[in-house]
């Protein structure tokens, strides 16, 4: 029997909740504290917890390293693309009001903030995982006696 039975059971319970919390922080950032940076870090922490408890190979199956470069780039592209979109609509770079110029309640601003926060979220999650994978992969594996 694995000596980590307790850890595994608890981690299995917690990781979905951590991910849920990350999304809460992400999408509730307009109203409470939080935003893309924090949410990205929390989601990455959840995945790292998975890697610590179940081994880094299992984590690499769940979140393949090949996604990481794409995810990191996608985040910046989404952020910059929001700015490019505002250019296309005739405004200055990152002028979100262009998305809904007629709105009295600044709907354009809401859409813009939503998009850029999502971009930050993607980049932060993937960058954190990149760093963790890079360091974690250099030991053969995180075997039991190491922890």
């Amino acid at each position, binding site marked *: 029997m694995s*000596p*980590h039975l307790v*850890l595994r059971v608890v981690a299995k*319970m*917690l990781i979905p*909740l951590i991910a849920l919390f990350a999304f809460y922080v992400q999408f509730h950032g307009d109203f409470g504290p939080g935003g893309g940076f924090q949410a990205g870090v929390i989601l990455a922490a959840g995945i790292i917890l998975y890697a610590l408890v179940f081994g880094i190979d299992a984590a690499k199956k769940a979140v393949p390293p090949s996604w990481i470069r794409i995810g990191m780039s996608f985040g910046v592209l989404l952020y910059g693309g929001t700015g490019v979109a505002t250019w296309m609509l005739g405004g200055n770079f990152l002028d979100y009001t262009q998305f809904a110029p007629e709105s009295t309640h600044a709907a354009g601003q809401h859409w813009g903030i939503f998009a850029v926060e999502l971009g930050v979220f993607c980049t932060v999650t993937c960058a954190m995982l990149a760093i963790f994978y890079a360091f974690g992969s250099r030991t053969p594996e995180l075997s*039991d006696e190491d*922890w």
Partner: protein
Amino acid sequence: MSIEVLQMFISAALIVSGVFFVLAGSIGIIRLPDFYTRMHAAGMTDTLGAELVILGLMVQSGFTQTSLKLLLIAFFLFLTSPTASHAVANAAHQAGLKPLLGHFRAPNPGEAVVEEEEEH
């Protein structure tokens, strides 16, 4: 006695007892002799002490959103603190750290307790 006063008393009692456990745990961490016993004290601080304080706060805030959030915190603490204590103690055990055993041997059941000090 109105409900508020009752609420107050219950919450005060809970918080005070929580603080007592935290204090006892803190003293234990300093005073106890070896890793495993200290772990015991630390685990108590984390789990029982903190839980009781949170319960007291919950009673104080009544049926509100704050109370719900506190309940969630209590739930997560209840899950994570014992797990953390377990993981740390388990790691120490795996690494081969022996618990510190006293000078007294545990008496066999049935025998009379003979207080016999061993030689150093």
